[in-house]
């Protein structure tokens, strides 16, 4: 077991856990966007930053990826952390102003109108869909394409992917509802491009199409707000 200090509290953590895991074990809440328990942490949204003391002063680290180390002193809501978090949220709001999850996050942090307007896309490039498709489903149907500000999620060549199994896991993990699911008769289309993709066999059960009950279930869970 590792012993470290978070927000003044001495906490014990399992060797190999991250600061985020150690904090949550002890009821200390740190907001996240690109983190998911079932996936390898990615460290891209920077919302979960925490202040770590070092001999040369403090620095911010992403708590979802930074390991809980023996004797570490961490602050999760210090001024340094809050200033960074507010800026991150303001930038996200500037890029995805209509995404409800981002609006709620901003409101909870007292971030009002962003000082700049960057884009209007609900996709915040957290990468959860790509990572889920790769790590959990194993279909590798979508990936991150392009670079920098033009980075986006796309199947190869921007057309329906042969590798997609239509499981809609990507829809499930997306925090902002950027991926749209449309089920019409036996055709399922994901994200909005009308692709008549082959329903390849589900790797787990072998069925060639999704049962209506599952479709309905996914539909119902999507009707609820994603947090």
């Amino acid at each position, binding site marked *: 077991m590792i012993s470290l200090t978070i927000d003044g509290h001495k906490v014990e953590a399992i060797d190999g856990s991250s600061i985020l895991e150690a904090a949550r074990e002890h009821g200390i809440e740190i907001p996240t966007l690109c983190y998911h328990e079932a996936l390898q942490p*990615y*460290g*891209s*949204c*920077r*919302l979960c*930053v925490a202040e770590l003391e070092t001999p040369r002063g403090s*620095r*911010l680290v*992403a708590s979802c*990826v*930074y*390991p809980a180390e023996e004797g570490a002193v961490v602050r999760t809501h210090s001024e*340094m952390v809050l*200033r*960074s978090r507010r*800026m*991150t949220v303001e*930038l*996200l709001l*500037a*890029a995805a102003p209509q995404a409800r999850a981002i609006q709620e996050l901003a409101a909870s942090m007292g971030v009002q109108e962003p*000082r*700049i307007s*960057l884009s209007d896309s609900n996709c*915040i*490039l957290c*990468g959860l869909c790509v990572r889920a498709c790769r790590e959990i489903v194993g279909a590798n149907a979508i990936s*991150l394409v*392009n*670079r*920098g*500000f*033009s*980075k986006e999620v796309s199947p190869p060549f921007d057309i329906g992917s042969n590798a997609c199994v239509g499981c809609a896991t990507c829809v499930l993990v997306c925090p902002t509802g950027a991926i749209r699911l449309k089920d019409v008769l036996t055709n399922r289309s994901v994200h909005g491009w009308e692709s008549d993709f082959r329903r390849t066999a589900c790797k787990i059960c072998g069925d060639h199409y999704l049962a209506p009950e599952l479709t309905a279930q996914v539909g119902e869970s999507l009707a609820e707000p994603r947090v």
Partner: protein
Amino acid sequence: MTTVRTPEELGLLRQRLVDGRDPDQPRVSVCCGTGCRVNGSIDVIEAFRRELDGQRLNGDIGLVGTGCHGFCEKGPVVVLKPSGVFYQRVGVDDVPEIVAETMVNGAVIDRLTYTDPATDKKIVYERDVPFYQKQKRLVLDLNGDIDPTNIEDYIVFNGYAALSKALLQMKPEEVIEEVVHSGLRGRGGAGFPAGVKWRLCREAKGDVKYIICNADEGDPGAYMDRSIMEGNPHRVLEGMIIGAWAIGAHQGYVYIRNEYPLAVENLRIAIEQAGEYGFLGRNILGSGFDFSIQIRPGSGAFVCGEETALMASIEDRIGEPRPRPPYPAVSGLWGKPTNINNVETWANVPLVICRGAEWYSGIGTDKSKGTKIFSVVGNINNTGLVEVPMGATLSEVIYDIGGGIPGGKRCKAVQLGGPSGGCVPSEHFDVPIDYESLQKLGAIMGSGGMVVCDEDTCMVEFARFFMDFVQQESCGKCVPCRLGTRAMLEVLTRITQGQGKEGDIAYLEELGEQIGQSSLCGLGQTAPNPVLSTIRYFRDEYEAHILDSRCPSHVCKPLIQYSIDAEKCTGCGRCLRKCPAEAISGAKKEPHVIDQEKCIKCETCLEVCKFDAVVVE
């Protein structure tokens, strides 16, 4: 080709090669680095070959095409050895005369010698050229002497002697100690002690380890590594093999950017020859140590100079950095302990091993040992590659070596470290070049790119240029860099277009601070540096743009106006005819006028006017 199987055989080979060469034999050294090639040095060397053949002198006079000599401004550079006669701007037509007059008759050709602008005197010998005098060329020492595609040239000059010593006379831990004691710090920019990094990797758990040479020199304006790899690739290889021995790695990679075709080719040839001669492969020099090196191409992504993105690229993935820890020394390429160092760092290693840590740590300052190579470019008279001991001042580099600013203009600032670095204004040019002193001024050593800005440089536009570069090169993974630098770029662009708002500077500072603290990798963490440092030292220029809608350096087009001075204008009509926007009107012999609404500010009129009548405000 001789396979060398033991240190003794290496010694014998070297002796045989040295004996077979006459050090007093006259020879011609022609610079065939990329810069001089663009100016036609390949044609020059071909001309020498033809001339020497034609005159039947090729037995008596040697000819060698070398790597970059460093004095790029004066290329093509030709140096006659052993006398050291230095000829600059040599053309194909000069060759017969050089052979007949200088090589045969010993007469110096005035028009080809270098004139020192400070004294107006002609300088005949390379060693007297001011550009070279204050340099301490240790890493670049052989660049003017050897053919980089001939390993035997390197062996003649004691090449692979350090490897022999390390493999057969030192234990791996002893090699690491030597490098630690030398004080050698990484030359890629971060300045982390190389020996300490090696030790971390050696101590990491695992049997499979890797060595990487980061040759993805991406800072625009920096070409130190290119010149090392073009001119003396074996020095880099030797350093890597020694490092691999110390760490316990058996496979190495050189990640080299594809924009350097000559360096890639020379490196490829060097690796092949090193393998043939027995310095790479199995049981090197009879030590029982196996090591091989592969070249991996960069594919046009500045972010792949960041070590975790570089490794992702070698792993056939997109160049997205990943958070650290774990550090590459513990978990790197394919999850194995990996040691990555920059080209220049590797090139220093054979020097440290051969001549010792004691000698090496005698050069430089207290905390910054050895020499550093800089590419001095921009508004400078002597553009070129400069190697100085740590502790030399910026002033010495810019004025004594660099020859000052063209046109006698004032030097405003110097930019170090490319898109990750800050600028140092002229009032601080007495700063010694070492890691700590530069940091105090808000700048960094960087990899060695040194861009000189004269008084006509707009520092706001300069900062905007770097932010634009960062936006093009950002991998896009993390929010602060992807979106934050976009925001900074939009604000900077507005300012340079005359649409700056009150509060913009404060917003830039806030964004800069947060992006610096919150970004995932070094690219994002350092991206705000050029902006923050120009705000620190040139706030007045920002304020002029924002509050007065004025660009004091007359660079930002929307903020400058072109007009014609009626007193000077003769009405010749040249500008009227050439103006692509048909914005100039006027009768023959009458002063012409520029219509501001139509003017597209292309400066064609300024270029063609023979009467200096176009006024820039």
